[in-house]
């Protein structure tokens, strides 16, 4: 384990890479996590617990497929429940990964380099969890194929392209594919490094195949960089479109509390907010457990905290506007929605949401909080709890009471809802730790560009 964090004197920002690093040390430190026979004990413990939760997920989903969605708490009028709350929550978490890898690359924010690889992995694994929910929410996922995708079948039935739910299918599947490609293309040169550092023949062969014969040729790098920048340019509007389309699932309906035009930017800001919280929830234990304080420095944590603070303020503004629009419309159903949030049966969750997403994260204004990893970790957990509550408030509290009091209802989740939700945490953690063990969690070739001797002198 590396030395504890040392905060530089006031007015000086911490460096983005620790002092004394060279091309060789960067390669050895990052590749060393993968190319070792020694599997750390904490890794075994975490994977053990995560695999247990993943088993619980499989059990719950298996039972769901046998019995149907009746084992969940969903009823009429609240037909969306946990499945859609969790879907929106997970997909939102993915957004920070793309923001870091694509948007910050276009803005030439070099600090993104040490966190982009595992943030991209986080995106892919989070989108996998997200995709699971609408699929099992159909109750019959094997039929969902032709409900959702344009597949030529003898029935001659096709999806309804005027529906935002179908837009969602295309947005999320494109997002997953593009994120996977972006992540994969970044890994090719690093697989070549692992191939060349590998000590045994089998390991060298495996990484050799994954590296596809990469040899670092200038002609290759030139095309590679073009493709990488273009992918970043493509992923930038893509990531903004994904959560916008998710928000249209709600906004294009007429339910009070959903029927607003500002949902797309509100959802995108919330997505980045929760995503950066998840980046910190992963980065802080990772840098501590693997002693990566030289690569993921306090500067990264501070910057991520600042992004959270900024997007958190946008989210706070959106909550205020939701209330304002309800009042300003003077529409009795919109006013009833506002009243239901403040005084309805779920008002406790609404106030918890305000506490978790607006009030407590204000602590990020203090440099002390931004520079203390454990405090940031706590704030991140609070923010992700808050973001989950936000989706609960949006999904459940709007469906719960719409226009006719005779169709009002209540929603309570069942143990199966909870088992699937907690199970996806396990699945996510399992995938993430397998990734850390088998692939370089920090982009080695991009880290080399941060080393002082990397610049060509005239």
């Amino acid at each position, binding site marked *: 384990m590396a030395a504890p964090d040392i905060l530089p004197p006031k007015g000086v920002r911490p460096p983005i890479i620790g002092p004394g690093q060279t*091309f*060789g040390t960067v*390669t050895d430190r990052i590749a060393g996590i993968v190319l070792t026979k020694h599997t750390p004990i904490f890794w075994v413990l975490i994977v053990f617990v995560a695999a247990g939760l993943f088993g619980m997920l499989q059990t719950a989903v298996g039972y769901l497929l046998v019995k149907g969605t009746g084992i969940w708490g969903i009823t009429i009028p609240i037909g969306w429940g946990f499945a859609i709350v969790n879907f929106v929550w997970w997909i939102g978490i993915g957004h920070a990964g793309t923001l870091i890898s694509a948007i910050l690359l276009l803005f030439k924010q070099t600090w993104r380099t040490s966190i982009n690889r595992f943030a991209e992995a986080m995106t892919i694994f989070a989108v996998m969890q997200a995709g699971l929910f609408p699929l099992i929410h159909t109750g019959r996922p094997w039929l969902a194929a032709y409900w959702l995708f*344009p597949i030529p079948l003898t029935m*001659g*039935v*096709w999806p*309804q*392209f*005027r529906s*935002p739910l*179908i*837009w969602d299918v*295309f*947005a999320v599947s*494109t997002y997953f*594919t*593009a994120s996977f*490609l*972006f992540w*994969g*293309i970044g890994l*090719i*040169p690093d697989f*070549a*490094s692992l*191939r*060349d*550092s590998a000590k045994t023949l089998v390991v060298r062969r495996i990484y050799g*195949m994954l590296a*596809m*014969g*990469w*040899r*670092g*040729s*200038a*002609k*290759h*790098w*030139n*095309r*590679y*960089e*073009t*493709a990488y920048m*273009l*992918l970043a340019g*493509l*992923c930038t509007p*893509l990531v903004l*479109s994904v959560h916008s389309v998710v928000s249209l699932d709600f906004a294009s309906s007429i339910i009070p509390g959903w029927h607003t035009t500002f949902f797309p930017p509100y959802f995108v800001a919330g997505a980045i907010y929760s995503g950066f919280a998840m980046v910190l929830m992963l980065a802080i234990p990772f840098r501590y457990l693997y002693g990566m304080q030289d690569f993921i420095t306090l500067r990264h944590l501070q910057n991520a905290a600042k992004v959270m603070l900024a997007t958190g303020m946008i989210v706070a503004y959106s909550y205020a506007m939701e209330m304002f629009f309800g009042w300003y419309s003077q529409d009795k159903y919109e006013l009833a929605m506002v009243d239901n949030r403040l005084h309805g049966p779920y008002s406790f969750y609404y106030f918890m949401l305000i506490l978790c997403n607006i009030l407590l994260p204000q602590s990020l204004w203090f440099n002390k909080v931004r520079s203390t990893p454990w405090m940031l970790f706590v704030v991140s957990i609070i923010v992700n709890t808050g973001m989950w509550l936000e989706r609960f408030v949006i999904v459940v509290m709007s469906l719960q009471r719409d226009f006719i009091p005779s169709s009002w209802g209540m929603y309570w989740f069942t143990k199966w809802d909870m088992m699937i939700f907690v199970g996806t945490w396990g699945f996510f953690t399992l995938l993430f730790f397998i990734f850390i063990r088998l692939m370089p969690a920090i982009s080695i*070739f*991009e880290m*080399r560009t941060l080393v002082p*001797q*990397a*610049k*060509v*002198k005239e």
Partner: protein
Amino acid sequence: MTATAAPIYGLMAEFETPTELVHAAKGAYDAGYRKMDTYTPYPIEEAAEAIGAHHNRVSLIVLIGAMLGMIGGYSLQFWVSTMAYPLNVGGKPFHSWPSFIPVTFECAILGASLSAVFGMLALNGLPQPYHPVFNSPNFVRASRDRFFLCIEAQDPRFNVVDTRKLLESFKPEVVTEVPY
């Protein structure tokens, strides 16, 4: 050293810093060599420029991919909604083009990203299981901390003695012959 009997792929010079490499690559290019390549552990724009390889066709392929995705996505929706399975939803026209835009956009991005990655790999000739440069000693460090310049034997100006002399004038760590 005299030329070996077996044909060689080229001469490989190894440098310790990117600056020396770019200097040597520029020098070799100025001396008239064209068939050469540099091998570096991270992308160095100046190296690609020095050997005259800073233009590529990836952008064109991505543009074509995006157009195909866009046209394909829109045509699919048009065909499904007006010909294959026309459904009257809320009295909206069958060809309600504004609601086709999101899927068209996503298909364009999908086509563009797939063509960016696979186009790049195809232009680079990857996956490639074998390449002679890997025969060069110490080449494993090309993916770690060393910078290589290889002048290929196919270059019309290539001559084992003179080319070696030129490469040695750039003060590399070592110059080696790369066997096939």
